[in-house]
């Protein structure tokens, strides 16, 4: 029987050895994947023993810090947000019960010192061997508290978003989404419920946890004419001087597509060129441009601007939406120009949806001679004991259009502010460039009011987008342009005021 017993022992030992292999798999190979799972509460609770890194604004203002509490002989670190909600969706939250969001989630490995930088690994090993608390790295944001606060105040009582960034570096100065929330309340059930069901200033809209600046999908309306104009000029089929006749509507598929305003008696501009068409935001002009270019060429240009892709911003991937034409049935972008309506697409309607971040990048592209810099919320990662671990450097993300096209669009956007639909954004002594948008929402007479902008137009230091949701009779030039003006003034040096 000994031969059988020997064979049986081999089987038994192999079975047990396979358990060592499986344990190795879960504890090394699969461990990062398990740690990243949202329902992995063990991982989250375990990280409460770590003194999490701070989140700071660009001037050093503390946006997220720790409160030490002793529970059952253990020292645990809980999050506290001293500003009670400045840039609430962007900073996000870190709780035991409800996971994490925003920067708290995307920068979690730095904040918990579990990133793979050699310096951090040594520091952490030292802390572990000494038995002292592991301290995470601090994350410094580009957010400027004065601009951020102003943006939130200007949007207070409204629903909407504002994004301001430096078009030459991609640094994000402000990213506001209104309404905001107090992240200190997330952990308690009552607080969470009150945030979820906050009395809706915006009818039928989503909760304040939602980052409208990056997740909010709005029809971009006339601000998208910037992309269409870029396609028109890049194609060589049009110049700024191309002539159009505007009877107040254009004819597509045998039907009238009217200019903005009363469809029964639309405003008609007669003989205009492309610049005037853009300056006064004439739908019929762009409708004709769109039909001549075809949907494919416009969509291709939009892709160069970053549509149909996720901007590489330091936020969790689930918190940034892609812009583009949407299939409303399954709520996903669809990319088949053959099924699009080129005339309406050209002035930003059809099924086109864009995030405020994306439209801010459109303005930034024009401002920066056609080059879109990678947008960055994070300025630097600092070691807990001082010293910089990572310094974020400006990099190019996209070439959106030819430099000559960008120069022509720059002039056109200035014309909008000097004598077009965006005069409310004028700042004395500063060349401001902008484009209004008054997007149809599907509800008659209720619009999403847009303004995209940059300044100073000859040497831009700020670009951005402002959107205010569902304003009855609200035009972009009247509602959003004044907000944009104040935000630009907060960033531009006082001498140019």
């Amino acid at each position, binding site marked *: *029987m*000994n*031969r*059988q*017993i*020997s064979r*049986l*022992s081999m*089987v*038994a*030992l192999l*079975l*047990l*050895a*396979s*358990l*060592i292999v*499986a*344990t*190795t*798999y*879960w*504890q*090394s190979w*699969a*461990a990062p994947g*398990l*740690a990243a*799972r949202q*329902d*992995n*509460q*063990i*991982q989250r*609770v*375990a990280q*409460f023993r770590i003194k999490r890194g701070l989140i700071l604004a660009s001037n050093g203002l503390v946006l997220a810090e720790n409160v030490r*509490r002793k*529970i*059952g*002989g*253990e020292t*645990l670190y809980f999050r506290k947000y001293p500003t009670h909600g400045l840039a609430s969706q962007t900073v996000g939250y870190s709780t*035991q*019960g409800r996971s994490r969001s925003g920067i708290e989630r995307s920068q979690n490995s730095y904040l918990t010192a579990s990133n793979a930088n050699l310096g951090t690994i040594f520091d952490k090993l030292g802390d572990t061997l000494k038995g002292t608390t592991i301290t995470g790295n601090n994350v410094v944001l580009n957010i400027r508290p004065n601009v951020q606060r102003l943006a939130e105040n200007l949007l207070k009582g409204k629903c909407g978003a504002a994004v301001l960034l430096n078009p030459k570096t991609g640094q994000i100065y402000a990213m506001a989404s209104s309404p905001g929330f107090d992240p200190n309340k997330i952990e308690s059930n009552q607080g969470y419920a009150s945030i979820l069901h906050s009395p809706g200033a915006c009818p039928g809209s989503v909760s304040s946890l939602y980052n409208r600046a990056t997740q909010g999908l709005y029809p971009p309306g006339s601000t998208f004419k910037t992309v269409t104009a870029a396609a028109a000029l890049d194609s060589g089929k049009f110049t700024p001087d191309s002539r159009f006749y505007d009877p107040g509507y254009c004819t597509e598929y045998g039907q009238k597509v009217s200019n903005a305003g009363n469809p029964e008696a639309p405003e008609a501009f007669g003989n205009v060129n492309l610049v005037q068409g853009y300056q006064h935001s004439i739908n019929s002009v762009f409708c004709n441009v769109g039909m001549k270019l075809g949907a494919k060429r416009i969509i291709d240009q939009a892709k160069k601007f970053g549509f149909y892709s996720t901007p590489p911003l330091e936020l969790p991937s689930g918190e940034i939406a892609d812009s583009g034409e949407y299939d409303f049935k399954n709520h996903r972008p669809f990319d088949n120009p053959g099924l699009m309506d080129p005339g309406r697409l050209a002035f930003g309607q059809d099924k086109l949806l864009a995030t405020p971040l994306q439209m801010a990048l459109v303005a930034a592209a024009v401002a920066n001679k056609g080059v879109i810099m990678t947008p960055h919320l994070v300025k630097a990662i600092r070691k807990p004991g001082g010293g910089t671990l990572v310094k974020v450097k400006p990099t190019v993300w996209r070439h959106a259009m030819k430099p000559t096209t960008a120069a022509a669009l720059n002039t056109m956007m200035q014309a909008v502010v000097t004598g077009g639909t965006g005069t409310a954004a004028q700042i004395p002594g500063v060349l401001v460039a902008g484009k209004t948008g008054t997007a149809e929402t599907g509800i008659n007479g209720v619009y999403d009011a847009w303004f995209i902008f940059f300044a100073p137009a000859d040497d831009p230091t700020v670009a951005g987008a402002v959107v205010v949701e569902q304003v009855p009779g609200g035009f972009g030039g009247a509602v959003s342009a004044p907000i944009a003006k104040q935000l630009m003034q907060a960033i531009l040096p006082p001498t140019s005021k």
Partner: protein
Amino acid sequence: MGARPLTLGNRNRELLYLGAVGVLTGIGFASVYIAQQAVVSWGSLGYAVFFFALYLCAHVVTRFTVPDADPYLLPMAGLLTAVGVTEIYRLGNADAFKQGLWIVVGVVLFAVTLLALRRDYRVLEQYKYLFGIAAIALLFLPRVPGLGETVNGARLWVKVGPVEFQPGEFSKIFLIVFLAAYLREKREVLAQGRPKDLGPLLLIWGATMLVLVSSNDLGSALLYYGIFLAMLYVATARFSYVFVGAILFLVGGYAAYERIPHVRDRVTIWLHPWTSSKVYCPQSGGLALRQDCQSYQLVKSLYSIGNGGFLGPGLGKGTFTTPDGHQLIPYVTSDFIYSALAQELGLIGASALLLVYMLFVARGMKIALQADDGFSKLLAAGLTFGFALQTFIIVGGVLRVIPLTGITLPFVSYGGSSVVANFLLLAGLLLVSNRANTQR
């Protein structure tokens, strides 16, 4: 003995290793104490001293009853029980005290078995049918109205007064004794393939399988099936039995998958523990992600293992509750004790633990090889294989190697019947080993 003055005798070796286990136990408890109270108190060593004293008693008994038996098995059992009690203590003191009591009961029964059978355990062969019938009767016990208790959907427990136990754990040992005796007697005729002689065998084995499957105890059913096939193969050397058995297992498994919802759930959980969209949740009757519903236990246990990493935070420093005391891993002291240990000890510690199991199995199989009669060989091989397979079924389930079925991890899991039954298994192996070594 006198001819080899420079080598340690088996029992002295055993004592030496027990000393090492005692030191390890002391360090383990001290580590948990330091992590929880930030002080080392003499109380922390109480458990270690108590443990050492208990195993010293067991050692004295082995000295008198089985002087030539293998010296490694008792210290390894000691180490495994100590690891179990330390972890159970760390997870909740009250259960550790009960587990300690059960270990005392186990050691007492271990001593009684050794004393009773020290002359010749082979008398058991004469009572083989008694063992076979007892195995079935024990399995039936939880079905008796007034005695049985249903825990987690499986009726496996018997409650007499304040004492609860799982008769299935003992049934396994009795069945192995029956199989060893029966197969020893009939192996030649079975090897020639006379189906008539399979009768009593299939009857008793079939009855146990029926009871197990009908009481939803799939882990034990798999265990019994494996033990049966392994012992049949060892006795007859006919691979065709194993082959036919494996085919029957596949057919039976498929039928069970098709017919029994409980089985289908287990397999679904095993294959797809995570879903990205909500699926039907039988517990709540509504829709939920599978990881929040049916595969909750498995997924939480995997998170626990993953959190251990390479070195683990150390005994007493793992994460098992939220700061407000809410449990993060269900059944952590019984079915999922391995995920707790793997988290606290890391890959190094968990592998070391599995190596102890492998060593135990290797020693057990060596005893089977050394034994010189068929009954002893079959008994030792059956007991050892049962031990190995049980470890594989529970740890493999926890690690998602096979579908998860709740059985205990030998010597480590919280559970009185399991600990006591494993001490009986240990006594059996030592008896066989002693006889084999004395005869040399």
